[in-house]
């Protein structure tokens, strides 16, 4: 053990001088004070190893605006006290969401609420603005809810959001995100924190084809026995797009399952990042944690950074992780072509199957139709 290792001095770990023009968009609170002192997150922080928010915002010139959202069903807009508890000793998307001026949406689903239709949150235009949306979702026991977020803004802007979720015992929340903001000049940062009680189930599917720069963080806490957290993601990136998916799943109770299944399809000189961590606390015996990240690079300039992590303190667990990154496999391509299918169509068929397997994780027909359309447009 080397006792000489010391952490870097605070001044060089954080760079408060970066993107300071955004400090004008801060509220007056302790989080704003913290960020003024420490700066926005940069890649000097381990969790931001591959993405530098301060750098991404450096050239953006935006004014604060209330989030321009539309909810399909207002019946459940009721204040709740959901708070996702995290440490704030270094800059994070949580501190950013709390420091920036913004708007709040609270959704509260009373016991045993079961809806035939999904609840839609449409996040419309953001031209020239920074919009910060803080969402709190309380799903009481026995509920069965599908919540769909959609963004499709043109023009430049920055969407930042935090979503704090509490899924009570035996409740189920399916969360679908269809992200299609302007690829030329818009930023999207989001952080989702969910706490799952006993027998609770939370599944999130993110389909991202938009934004020039995006980072989506997911932090799950499985706090009751037999909970299930499923995180599925699909990033289709081209041009000079950048997208980072960073995940932390904390198993804090026995007999829980978690599943991460992410696929990135990267063309041109776009860049993707996947950082996924499963943290199994000592109490969480019989954990079943699964992680898979497959990446398809469609151009020699495409870049993918992958960092899988397991941190396990219990001795009776099953955790697996796997990742692949490469070009389209020639063997299935030849097989299809030998059956008369032209190369272009064969490639498309293989790409559609590559993304289709992620979409298959969630069964919600209207969203599937929309996701298929986003993908078809991306491929055309």
């Amino acid at each position, binding site marked *: 053990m080397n006792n000489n290792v010391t952490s870097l001095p605070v001044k060089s770990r954080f760079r408060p001088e970066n993107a300071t023009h955004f400090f004008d968009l801060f509220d007056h609170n302790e989080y704003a004070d913290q960020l003024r002192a420490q700066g926005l997150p940069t890649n000097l922080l381990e969790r931001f190893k591959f993405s530098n928010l301060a750098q991404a915002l450096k050239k953006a010139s935006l004014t604060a605006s209330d989030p321009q959202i539309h909810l399909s069903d207002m019946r459940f807009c009721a204040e709740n006290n959901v708070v996702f508890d995290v440490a704030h000793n270094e800059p994070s998307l949580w501190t950013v969401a709390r420091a920036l001026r913004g708007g709040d949406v609270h959704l509260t689903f009373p016991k045993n609420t079961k809806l035939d239709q999904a609840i839609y949150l449409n996040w419309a235009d953001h031209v020239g603005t920074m919009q910060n949306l803080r969402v709190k979702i309380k799903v009481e026991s026995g509920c069965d809810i599908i919540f769909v977020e959609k963004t499709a803004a043109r023009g430049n802007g920055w969407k930042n959001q935090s979503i704090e979720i509490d899924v009570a015992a035996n409740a189920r929340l399916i969360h679908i995100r269809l992200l299609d903001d302007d690829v030329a000049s818009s930023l999207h940062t989001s952080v989702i924190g969910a706490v799952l009680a006993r027998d609770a189930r939370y599944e999130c599917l993110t389909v991202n084809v938009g934004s020039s720069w995006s980072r989506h963080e997911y932090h799950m806490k499985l706090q009751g026995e037999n909970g299930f957290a499923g995180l599925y993601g699909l990033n289709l990136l081209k041009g000079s797009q950048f997208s980072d998916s960073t995940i932390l799943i904390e198993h804090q109770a026995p007999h829980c399952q978690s599943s991460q299944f992410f696929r990135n399809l990267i063309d041109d000189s776009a860049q993707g990042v996947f950082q996924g961590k499963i943290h199994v606390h000592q109490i969480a015996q019989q954990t079943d944690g699964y992680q898979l990240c497959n990446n398809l690079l469609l151009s020699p300039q495409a870049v993918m950074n992958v960092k899988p992590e397991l941190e396990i303190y219990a001795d009776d667990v099953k955790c697996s992780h796997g990742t692949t990154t490469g070009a389209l496999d020639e*063997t299935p391509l030849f*097989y*299809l072509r030998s059956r*008369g299918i032209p*190369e272009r*169509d064969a490639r498309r*068929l*293989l790409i559609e*199957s590559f993304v289709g397997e992620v979409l298959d994780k969630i069964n919600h027909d209207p969203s599937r139709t929309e996701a298929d359309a986003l993908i078809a447009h991306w491929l055309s």
Partner: protein
Amino acid sequence: MIDIQNLSVEIDGKQILDGLNLTIPDGEVHAIMGPNGAGKSTLSYVLAGREDYVVTGGDILLNGSSILEKSPEERAAAGIFLAFQYPVEIPGVQMTNFLKTSVNAIRKQRGENELEALDFLKLMKSRQKELGIADEMLKRPVNVGFSGGEKKRNEILQMALLEPTFAVLDETDSGLDIDALKIVADGVNSLRAPNRSFLVITHYQRLLDYIVPDVVHILAKGKIVKSGDASLALELESKGYADFVEAA
């Protein structure tokens, strides 16, 4: 008629086929036998147009015109079919969708009308029944979770749907038990026709009890070293390849 003239092929700079000559007239079934590494699978891939095999000499003529410049899909449309030794798993692509896409891609290239869903299903059902293929199998992704026998039957189903003029069966018998072998052989025999020829590549004489060839060739060191009638396969079975390989 397929006419392979003095064909030489390399992969990764290594010569595999070395001046191979082979002519298969319409309606005939020829078998190629040979030891491991003789170039049997290379021949099948080159016929189907796999791009990493480099033809360094010779030609392949289908009904008098060269196919060397044709892509795999163009060869398929021209009537060439390869039943793969190891059929490829394609997760996420459902069997029925794959078969329909394939049939219609070929019809389109041939300037024929594409089949409507219902007409295609009728066609598929009739072929499927002959091969004893369950509906359930066609709902799965291509070859995913198929047993060895199912994979090979699936190849024959594709052949039956695409109705090639020249079909290559690359070790279609490998890994099959006797019942599966009979089903596959029956499927092939039912497709024998005056305007269709077959090249059956195999290690073992056993398959040729069920698919009786007109001519048997022995391939060694990249060329045909001996040809004869069906009795040559029996001779091989008892004597082994050693003599023929020596002769090459």
